[in-house]
Structures are given as structure tokens and as C-alpha cells.
């Protein structure tokens, strides 16, 4: 496993350069994980893109870098400390200086000049890609092939220039720095994998789950879901509507759900806060709706481009009045795909809003995922609890009871267009027919009916997952993007460490959490927020004792596997003393 990084100024194509490397490596059969550091500005400011290349699944970034490509001095200053015994390739154009304390080899190439020699400074990053291929001792051919395909549409001249750039970059390293070519990747593991982000996985899952309408409002880091669907929906007859705000977005989704379509909105914390009232409307009117929250640093505008997991309590309790909401929490890109699809099934089946809590890291960073894990056909659409036209005709006029009391709280509904199915769906308390009612007895029945739905969902979903030894000494508990980090950390800890994660925060999988955690002597809940929100939820559900410990981080930077190892190691040591 190697870690490569390229850094420079924002607006200089750092992203797409890293992307090329990741995609070619993936195509060759490596597992990649790409992590971007960026400033929240459009142009200028340091950015870097780190790609880990491995022969097994990677789902976290790491502290260490093997090869750093620096396009300016700031990149060196900010990143050299990661380069223990690594290689630093710098453009000689900016006269790179390696700090004294660095333990890296500095290689320079006149990247800018070389680019100019083939026609344009714009080619600089491609020269760097070629050079990187050489430094990684990867064959150059797949890179050539990739750029050929990538630029095909732009015409032969562009293709030729890009090929040339890769070639000369590659060749110069081989010619000048053969002695330094110490890094070598293991043999790749052929497979059919895509490099995708959690956002794309959610967009794909939505399509697979039958979603055909997204009404949303742009917001970092959720906009990508909307943008991908804007690209893909025309292929399946769906529509993306950019609304005037989040209040409109969620309400449009509710309208569509009332009419029988599968619709969603995607947002981040500020949007969730604005949607609180309408989520209550969906609950009370029993209308399916899917809402994705790609969490970022809060509260208020907070740290829009930074990682956090601090909306959990707001997702659960943020609206006025008594509601129980369904909150799904995918712990990987694959689970993002599955949960996105499943959210639409649950929303329709239980006629209730379903919220998906993901986070910036899980959503934005790309990684290799097996194509077989992204099959639309593996996510069958479950329709349910809808009166057919025949049923309604048989029922007769004015007999349909939209909110009839049932055992599981779900009342079969009618859809607009069906004769005899007309009713009133209102956010005001209502009786079984839908008509407004202030009757105290009815009120209790309706409240209980709505709250009882969670039990059905609870039955259907394994809300707490575990991976690890049968008799773990320590269990690391996480959520969202943290899960992959914990998995990697566990591999670096002495055996007997397991990883557990929430797939569902509500309905809270109390018994499952209890049984999974029962054998552990110590439990470390690792969450990226200041208040220990997951711990709070566990406590409410009676899951709290002296075995529990929290590892909280709220500086906007994701946990590193190494940090978790550092935090867990003394715990394990203490335990062994006893």
C-alpha cells in the first residue's frame, strides 16, 4: 500500500490530477481511496489530493505519505512532515526548498518548462502524473490509454499533448532518478471496480430505489447528490428541481409523496434546521419522504467544508411536538447505496419520512467499490399498503378511511387519480377518515398509531453491525465515515478488537446494541462531534455503564486510523493489567 499526494493552489486542477491517478490505479486493479484537503474558497489557497493505492479495500486516509508532488513551496511546508523517508517531487520552477527537519528525498523536475515545451503550461499536471507513475513504478501504458479516452472528445491535438505530457514526465524520472525508485506496489487484484463517492452512491441508490424527483437547494457538501441526479435523471425520466430554498424543497417532496411518487431532497445541517417543521408535517400526514443530511461542521454556517457528525440529535428531535423519525446511518459507500434505495422502500411502506445521515467525508471522498455492490437489481422496489382502484371501487363512495387504525400503525392509502380514494391529508390532528378532529380519545389513538410504526421498521432492519472477533476485549463503535477508519484502526491493534456501527439510529436497535456489546470489556464510542451525541442516544436507551468511553473530535478534520490506534492502545494496556 502506498500513499501519493499532489498539492498546489486551488483552481490549478489539483483535483482532476489526483483523480486521474486514482482512476488509472483503480482500473489497473488496485483499490484506491482519494482524500482532498481544500480551503473554502474558489480560487487560490492550498489544496491537496491524496490517493492511497492498495491491494485490499481502503476506506480511510492516513497520516503518512510516500510520494508528494509539490506544485508550490506552500505544499512542501504544509505536507513535508508526512514524508518520512518518502519522495518529494517538486517543480524546479519555484525553486523548492526542503525544510531541514525533513527526512524525504527531494527530486526536482522542470514540470512547468516541460509542459511549455509541448505547447502549454496547462500540461504541467499531466507531466506530474507521468512522473508519478514512474515514481510508483507503475507501467505508463494505462495512463496513456486513460488520457486518450478522457480527452477523445476534445480532439486529436489535445489527446496528443496529454499523451506526450504523461510520457515525458514518466521518462524523465526513469532517466534521471532510477536510483530513487524504491517504492513498488504489490501485484494488482483484477476486478470490476468503480471509483465513486458516497454522494454518487446515494444518487445511484435513489435511482435504484425508484426515486424520480429531487427537489433541492444547493449546499456544501450535499450539492453533489443533486448534481449527479441532474445528470442521470433524464436517462430514467426523472427530474431535479432547484427550489428557492429548503422549505420549498422538503414541501415539494411531501407533495410528490402525497401524489405517489418517490421523491427526495438532499441538504446539510442548515437545510435540516429549516426543514424541521415540514418533516413534522410528513409524519402527521403519513406521507413518504426521503431526506439526506450530508453533515458538515456546525452549528450555523459553521465549517461548511469540514467533516462533522453533529446533526444526529437534530435529526431525531429537531421538530416541535412528539415525533419519532426514521434515521438511517450508512457506514460505507456501499451502505450509502443500499440505504438510499432502502429509504424509499421504508418511507413508502411505513408512510413516513426517512432521514439518511451521512457526512462530508463519506460523501465527498472517492474510493474503489466493486461494481457488483452497486446493482440496481439488488435493490428491489417494495410497493405496499396502497388501495388499488378495484379495492376502492368495491369499497364504494366516501367509505375510504385513509387513517384507519391498524395493528402496525400503517393504513393502506389511496393515490390521487383513484376513484373513491379522495381524502384530506392534513397536518392538523385528524380522525381515521382524515377529517380534522379535536377529540381527545382520537388524538391518543392517532399519536400512538404514528409512533408505533417504528416497531415495524425495527423488525425489518439490522440496525447495529459488528465485525470482529467473537470475544472482543474492546469494541470500537462508530457511525458514517468513521466506520472505515475504525476498521483500519482495528487491524493495527492487537487482536480481540471489534468494530461495531449503527445502520439505524432510529428506531434505536437497543437489544442488538446490548447483545453485540455484551462480551466487550471496554467500549470506545468514536464520534465526530463535541457533545457525544451517539453516547447520549445510547444513554437514553439505557446503554451506559462503566465500560463505555468516548473519543470525540470536533476540529473539522476526520479521525486518522493512527489516532484511533493511539487512543485505544492505552485502553487495551490498562485492561491487560487487570
Amino acid at each position, binding site marked *: 500500500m502506498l500513499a501519493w499526494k499532489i498539492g498546489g493552489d486551488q483552481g490549478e486542477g489539483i483535483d482532476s490530477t489526483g483523480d486521474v491517478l486514482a*482512476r488509472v490505479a483503480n482500473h489497473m486493479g488496485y483499490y484506491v481511496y482519494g482524500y482532498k484537503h481544500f480551503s473554502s474558497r474558489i480560487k487560490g489557497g492550498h489544496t491537496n489530493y491524496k490517493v492511497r493505492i492498495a491491494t485490499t479495500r481502503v476506506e480511510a486516509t492516513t497520516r503518512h505519505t510516500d510520494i508528494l508532488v509539490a506544485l508550490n513551496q506552500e505544499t512542501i511546508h504544509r505536507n513535508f512532515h508526512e514524508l518520512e523517508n518518502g519522495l518529494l517531487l517538486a517543480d524546479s520552477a519555484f525553486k523548492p526548498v526542503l525544510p531541514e527537519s525533513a527526512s524525504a528525498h527531494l527530486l526536482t523536475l522542470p514540470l512547468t518548462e516541460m509542459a511549455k515545451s509541448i505547447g502549454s503550461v496547462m500540461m504541467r499536471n499531466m507531466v506530474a502524473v507521468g512522473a508519478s507513475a514512474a515514481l510508483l513504478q507503475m507501467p505508463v501504458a494505462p495512463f496513456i490509454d486513460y488520457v486518450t479516452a478522457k480527452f477523445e472528445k476534445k480532439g486529436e491535438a489535445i489527446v496528443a499533448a496529454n499523451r506526450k505530457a504523461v510520457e515525458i514526465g514518466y521518462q524523465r524520472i526513469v532517466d534521471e532518478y532510477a536510483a530513487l525508485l524504491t517504492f513498488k506496489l504489490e501485484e494488482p487484484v483484477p476486478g470490476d471496480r*468503480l*471509483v*465513486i463517492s458516497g454522494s*454518487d452512491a446515494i444518487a*445511484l441508490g435513489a*435511482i*435504484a430505489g*425508484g426515486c*424520480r*424527483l429531487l*427537489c433541492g437547494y444547493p449546499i456544501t457538501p450535499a450539492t453533489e447528490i443533486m448534481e449527479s441526479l441532474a*445528470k442521470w435523471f*433524464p*436517462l*430514467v*425520466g*426523472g*427530474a431535479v*428541481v432547484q*427550489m*428557492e430554498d429548503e*422549505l*420549498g424543497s422538503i*414541501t*415539494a*417532496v*411531501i*407533495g*410528490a*409523496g*402525497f*401524489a*405517489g*411518487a*418517490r*421523491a427526495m431532497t438532499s441538504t446539510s445541517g442548515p437545510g435540516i434546521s429549516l426543514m424541521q*417543521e*415540514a418533516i413534522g*408535517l410528513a409524519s402527521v*400526514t403519513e406521507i413518504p419522504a426521503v431526506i439526506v443530511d450530508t453533515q458538515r461542521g456546525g452549528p450555523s454556517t459553521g465549517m461548511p467544508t469540514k467533516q462533522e457528525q453533529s446533526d444526529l440529535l437534530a435529526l431525531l428531535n429537531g421538530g416541535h411536538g412528539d415525533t419519532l423519525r426514521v434515521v438511517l446511518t450508512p457506514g460505507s459507500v456501499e451502505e450509502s447505496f443500499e440505504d438510499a434505495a432502502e429509504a424509499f422502500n421504508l418511507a413508502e411502506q411505513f408512510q413516513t419520512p426517512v432521514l439518511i445521515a451521512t457526512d462530508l467525508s463519506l460523501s465527498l471522498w472517492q474510493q474503489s467499490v466493486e461494481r457488483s455492490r452497486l*446493482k*440496481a*437489481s439488488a435493490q428491489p*422496489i417494495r410497493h405496499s399498503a396502497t388501495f388499488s382502484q378495484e379495492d376502492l371501487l368495491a369499497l364504494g363512495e*366516501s367509505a375510504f378511511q385513509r387513517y384507519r387504525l391498524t395493528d402496525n400503525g400503517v393504513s393502506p392509502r389511496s*393515490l*390521487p*387519480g*383513484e376513484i*373513491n380514494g*379522495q*381524502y*384530506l*391529508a*392534513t*397536518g*392538523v390532528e385528524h380522525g381515521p377518515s382524515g*377529517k*380534522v378532529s379535536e377529540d381527545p380519545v382520537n388524538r391518543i389513538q392517532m399519536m400512538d398509531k404514528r409512533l408505533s410504526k417504528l416497531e415495524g421498521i425495527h423488525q425489518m432492519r439490522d440496525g447495529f453491525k459488528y465485525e470482529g472477533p467473537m470475544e472482543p476485549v474492546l469494541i470500537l463503535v462508530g457511525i458514517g465515515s468513521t466506520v472505515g477508519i475504525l476498521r483500519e484502526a482495528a487491524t493495527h491493534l492487537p487482536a480481540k478488537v471489534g468494530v461495531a456501527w449503527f445502520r439505524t439510529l432510529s428506531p434505536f436497535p437497543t437489544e442488538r446494541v446490548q447483545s453485540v456489546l455484551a462480551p466487550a470489556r471496554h467500549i470506545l464510542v468514536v464520534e465526530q462531534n463535541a457533545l457525544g451525541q451517539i453516547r447520549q442516544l445510547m444513554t437514553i436507551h439505557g446503554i451506559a455503564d462503566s465500560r463505555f468511553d468516548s473519543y470525540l473530535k470536533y476540529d473539522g478534520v476526520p479521525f486518522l486510523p493512527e489516532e484511533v490506534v493511539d487512543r485505544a492502545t492505552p485502553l487495551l494496556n490498562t485492561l491487560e493489567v487487570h
Partner: protein
Amino acid sequence: MATLQDFRTNENAWWCPGCGDFGVLAAMQKALVAVHANPATTAIVAGIGCSGKIGNYINSYNLHVTHGRTLPAALGIKLANRDLMVLVAGGDGDGYAIGMGHFMHSLRRNVNITYVVMDNHVYGLTKGQTSPTSEEGFKTKTTPQGSIERPIHPLMLAVSAGGTFVAQGFSSWQPQLASLIQKGIEHPGFSLINVISPCVTYNKVNTYDWYKKNLQNLDDDPTYQPTDRSRALTRLHESDEMVTGLIYQEASTPYEALIPGFRETPLVHQDLTVDETTWNKILSTLE
């Protein structure tokens, strides 16, 4: 073919005796009959307010949303099922105060829905506070010494915002009102019918009599052509919006007909499974 009776529910209207909203209800029902609507394929979204109770009395698929959010809900319904006739009704507070943003954007988005605003220049349901259409000097519990804000001019705003159908009716002038709502429904795009619907309990200034004295009926003015945006604005400005009739209309293609790849068949009737070829096409954009 549906009759007036078909558009009634078995609930007694909740409004105060004499409330203008009775007339709006009647006119909507007449318009629905006139356009040969079917209760089963009609969806009505209502706002929160006295006005918003209207959905309870029209036999159709009724969605009663949160305060101010009728229009986005209607958009969702229409995009989900293009075959439905979608109407929206709500108060002046609902539409022009808390709902103002959606109002403006619905006008420019031009989804094929018909918006009936039941404008009584006051907040009825919350028992008499100033509304955006209240006149300067209007005294209410929140402005005991009289309102000091200029009233909103919904019609001028609608015309300025790119509305493709803008009209005003009066609850007491049933035939014109019903016909305006009918034309609004028939208009292939967003239609606004602002309806003067007096509140007999909390508005003792803008009464039926007052309106009868002050309103001009554009139908009585053969020279007025509702086809020129500038002229419409001038007329509205000069009359201080004290006109009823069709104020502006233009040829329009509704939003839903312009969405790339969006199909004639309503979303709700489509097969949601994605065939292998399409799926791979989607995935291929990720390579």
C-alpha cells in the same frame, strides 16, 4: 360528468356566517364542474388560515400543509402526476407573508397549477392581525394605532415576476369569479387568481359594500386587453389594484413540459425498475 354535488363533502363549512370564503368555495366548485374536472383526478392544496379550511369542503385529494408552503407542495404533486388537475387555495397571510418567496418563484417557474388566494386583508384564523395586504392605517391587535407598512400589491408583483396568467375576482361576483378560476385552470402554466373575500369578523373596513363601491370590473371596459405586461402594470398601478377580471395572460408552456427527459406518462405510473442497459449507461459516466 361531475356535478357540483360531486365536489362537495359531507362537512359543514366552518367559517363565520357571511365570510367571503363561502363564495370562493362555491366559485371553485363551479369552475371545477365547468372544466369537467373529476374529483378523483383533482388535487387541492390548502394553506393554514380560515381560508385554508377550503380543502375540507371540496371532494378531491386534499393536502393541507404547513403555513405558507402550499405552492411547493403543489409543484411536487404536479410533477409526480402530470395528469392531475392541481389547485391551490390559501389566505393573504399564507401566500403573501410567510409564503411570499414561493409565490414569486412559482410565478417564474410556471408549473401548471392554479393558485386562488382568498384575500381578506387580515389574519382571520389567528383572530385579527395585520396582513401584507392590509391598508396603511388599518388597526388590529398587532397594530393598535394602525398599520405603518405599505400594503403588498400581489397583482403587480405577479405581473412583474413573469406570471403568465394573473387575474382578480371578488367573492360576491360569482359568475366572473368562477369564470376566472375556470380560465386559470385551463391556462397551461401557473395561474394566479387573487380573490377579494371579505372577513366579516375582523375587517370592518374592507367590507362587501366598500368593495362594491371601489372595485372596477375590467369586463366592463372593452378597451382593456390583458395581453400587454406594461399596460397591465400601468392599469394596476393607476387603479391601486382595485380591478376585477383577467389582468394579464400570455401563451405559455408549463415547466413540466420543458424538463429534459421528463415523460408524458406521470411519474407515478412509470415502471421504476431500471433496465440493465440504462443502469450501465449511468455507471459508465463514473468511469
